[in-house]
């Protein structure tokens, strides 16, 4: 496994606010990493640092390059969609393809036109004439036609309806992703993407709360649903979170083996959203 991104002690301060506070992590090739955090957690700042759009302290290397100082070189091998609204509204679809073709060495116009052919986006249309969903399809068609090593998606489906969102992720998985590519996604709608992630990272108040492969979440975290005396016993085992559901108590354990909990009630691997809430609340205590 090669490490595409390597961060050691990376920080970014805006005055007294620590948007990113001394974080260290690696992203390996062939992964789909979900970066999850509440608003203002530092997600976007961290992505901007990775993309060389903002300066930061610490050691940060992306594809072996310093993102801020070697941004042009880096962007030949990285793509990103920052938000659905960023395509210029005045441009025509053909002009957009012409332009990207002439400035991007790894762009295949044929591929982009192939993807666009599957949509309702007309090639002579201006971006301002397209619906929000179509603009996203256009942007994704361009991005997927770039042979990049790392794709960064920052809330890529914000404001889209469920049909477009589902289609977006299925296109991404079926037409784009392979073992040589790496995808980094941030989103609020974690339920929609948790099945396609290979790795997950939680960030809150500039710090990383969790950084784990999806498959080992089941080894570390377990959710127990129980009631009565069993609930009291469970509480004694030190759950990291507890909440009530349908009159029962739901406990979330970290690092407690399933054997110890067997017999106390129903066990399951917690959904990412529950784990996230528990981790963020735990960090605030």
């Amino acid at each position: 496994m090669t490490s595409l991104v390597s961060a050691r002690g990376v920080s970014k301060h805006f005055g007294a606010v620590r948007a990113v506070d001394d974080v260290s992590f690696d992203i390996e090739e062939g992964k789909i990493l979900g970066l999850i955090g509440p608003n203002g957690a530092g997600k976007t700042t961290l992505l901007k640092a990775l993309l060389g759009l903002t300066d930061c302290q610490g050691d940060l290397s992306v594809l072996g390059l310093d993102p801020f100082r070697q941004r042009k070189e880096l962007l030949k091998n990285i793509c990103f969609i920052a938000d659905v609204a960023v395509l210029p509204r005045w441009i025509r679809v053909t002009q957009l393809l012409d332009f990207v073709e002439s400035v991007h060495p790894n762009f295949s116009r044929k591929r982009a036109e192939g993807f666009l052919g599957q949509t309702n986006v007309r090639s002579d249309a201006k971006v301002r004439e397209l619906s929000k969903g179509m603009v996203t399809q256009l942007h994704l068609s361009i991005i997927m036609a770039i042979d990049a090593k790392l794709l960064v998606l920052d809330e890529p489906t914000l404001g889209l309806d469920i049909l477009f969102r589902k289609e977006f992720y299925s296109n991404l998985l079926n037409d784009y992703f392979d073992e040589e590519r790496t995808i980094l996604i941030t989103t609020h709608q974690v339920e929609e993407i948790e099945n396609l992630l290979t790795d997950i990272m939680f960030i809150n108040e500039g710090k990383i709360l969790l950084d784990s492969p999806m498959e080992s979440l089941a080894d570390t975290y377990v959710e127990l649903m129980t009631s009565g005396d069993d609930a009291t016993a469970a509480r004694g085992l030190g759950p990291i979170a507890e909440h009530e559901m349908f009159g029962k108590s739901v406990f979330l354990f970290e690092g407690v083996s399933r054997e110890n909990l067997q017999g106390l009630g129903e066990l399951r691997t917690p959904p990412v959203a529950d784990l996230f809430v528990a981790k963020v609340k735990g960090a605030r205590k």
Partner: protein
Amino acid sequence: MMINQLALLKREVWEHRSIYVTPLAVASIVTLGTLAMLMFAGGFAKELDVAIFGATNIAGDAERRVALTGFFVGTSWVFLLAAMVLTIFYTLDCLYAERKDKSILFWRSLPITDAEAVVSKLATAIVVIPLVTVVAIIATHIVNLVVTSIWVIAKGADAGHLIWGSVPLLDNWLAALIVTLASAIWMSPFVGWFLFVSAFTKRSPLLMAFMPLVLIPLLELIFLRSTVFAEAVFTRRGMIPLFRGMDMEGFFDEESLHVNEEIVSLLAHLDVVQFLTSPSMWAGLVVCALFVTAAIYVRRYRDES
């Protein structure tokens, strides 16, 4: 680098259609004006048509040259004026609009440096707009000479001699190219300032660009009792060290209708060496470079979210 620049320049023309719409509009107005003049003049008796270049009662070839060159210079100034207004609006908009509609995030997701992007906007202002202007001047010139020739032929005169034989075409066109490019270079500190304002201001670039140009001279006058800034800024346009001897306006003088043929040459009035060796010109370029560097810096370091 070169391919990027060409693509970026093309992009500017796509986005700012006024770059070619403005000269087209001026060309249409000038041509319509010529047509109206010819039709109006056509109502007079032939011997009264002194205003018309092809009229046989213009004294001689030299005077006809002066009349045609005068027409050429007059219309060229209209194009230059339009280009100046266009450049002000273009430079104030180009780095502001991309931030306002957030498309800057898309442009910055492509392998293009901020320096390349800002330089393409500078090149649009001081190379592309002047070149488009010169092409429009030449095209308008040709169209108007053709229209006038048809009129002269309709009057039964020899257009080949009266019109085409009398116009110093190459001289006029080369002069137009030099004057337009030199003006753009001479005014480049303003271009740099406008680009910088466009890159940093959060609202109303026009107001932000012109407010200091009004306030600073006012404050200088009140507190220092001097007018150094105002003179440097507001008189710069008229001080371009390109012309020698007779002022351009001399062409419209009654007297110049009777001067010898050499004076009809526009090139003879231009002093390119004097322009290129002028410290003021170079100082202006340095000011422009400083502002453009500042604009690049702002685009690169400012967080847009």
